[in-house]
């Protein structure tokens, strides 16, 4: 089963990197959607269904924290699992984002296998590889 993935990060380079490592890791991706901040991400999610969201925290306009709050406040969007991908690896931040509804947290820098394994765990699939 292929998964449709939304990547939310203000860095175009990081969005490209995530796509590349997911493809190389064999994770079964159907389509990719991208957004450079939480506000754009909400627009994308309201226009198409996606199976999982990978989001950064530090972003202009609407950061990851506010984005997560908006998702949790929406009866439909809250069902989409969110995986945080961030440079902030402090225990305080990890705990905070998970308590706000994120299903997983990957700290930058990360290896391809780490991202893939965490995605599979969040999606509840044992092996989502092509």
């Amino acid at each position: 089963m292929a998964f449709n993935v939304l990547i939310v990060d203000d860095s175009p380079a990081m969005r490209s990197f995530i796509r590349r490592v997911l493809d190389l890791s064999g994770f079964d991706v159907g389509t990719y959607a991208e957004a450079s901040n939480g506000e754009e991400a909400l627009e994308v999610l309201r226009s198409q269904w996606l199976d999982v969201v990978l989001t950064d925290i530090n972003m202009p306009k609407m950061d990851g924290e506010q984005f997560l709050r908006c998702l949790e406040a929406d009866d439909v969007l809250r069902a989409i699992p969110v995986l945080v991908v961030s440079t902030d690896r402090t225990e305080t931040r990890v705990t905070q984002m998970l308590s706000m509804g994120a299903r997983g947290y990957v700290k930058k820098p990360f290896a391809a296998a780490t991202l893939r394994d965490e995605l599979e765990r969040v999606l509840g699939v044992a092996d989502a590889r092509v």
Partner: protein
Amino acid sequence: MHVSEMVKHLQPAFTEVLETMFFTSILEAAVSGGVPAGAPTISSRLTFHGAPSGVFEIGMSQDGARALAAAFLGEDERDLPYEKTGEVVCELANMLCGSFLSRIGNRSTFELSHPEVVEASAEVGEACACFELPEGPLSVSVRFEGQV
């Protein structure tokens, strides 16, 4: 934590980021209080807010940056436009700063500004270093604001 202690965290922070996501490594490190000889031709700067707050800047040669960017993006460096190289250098600054702050902070969170490509700053930060990579030297300068 005193600034002199913080400087010791630069190398492990840089090593982790460079090896994990840029598939390169530090050949040699020199901790210095000044900008190294051979001015870098592409720099990226961002501000950080938390405990502590300040400005974080990295710099390297354009050729070196292009090689790192090509490795990061999985693209041929001969075809890589300057704009994409700049985007990768900004992301490198973002990750290096985040990795460094996570090691020196008191378990407190931090906010990072959107990194930008800038002219190399003439101002030298309290924590400086230069790391020799296979792609060339990578310099870093961290300036703290307020009480550290």
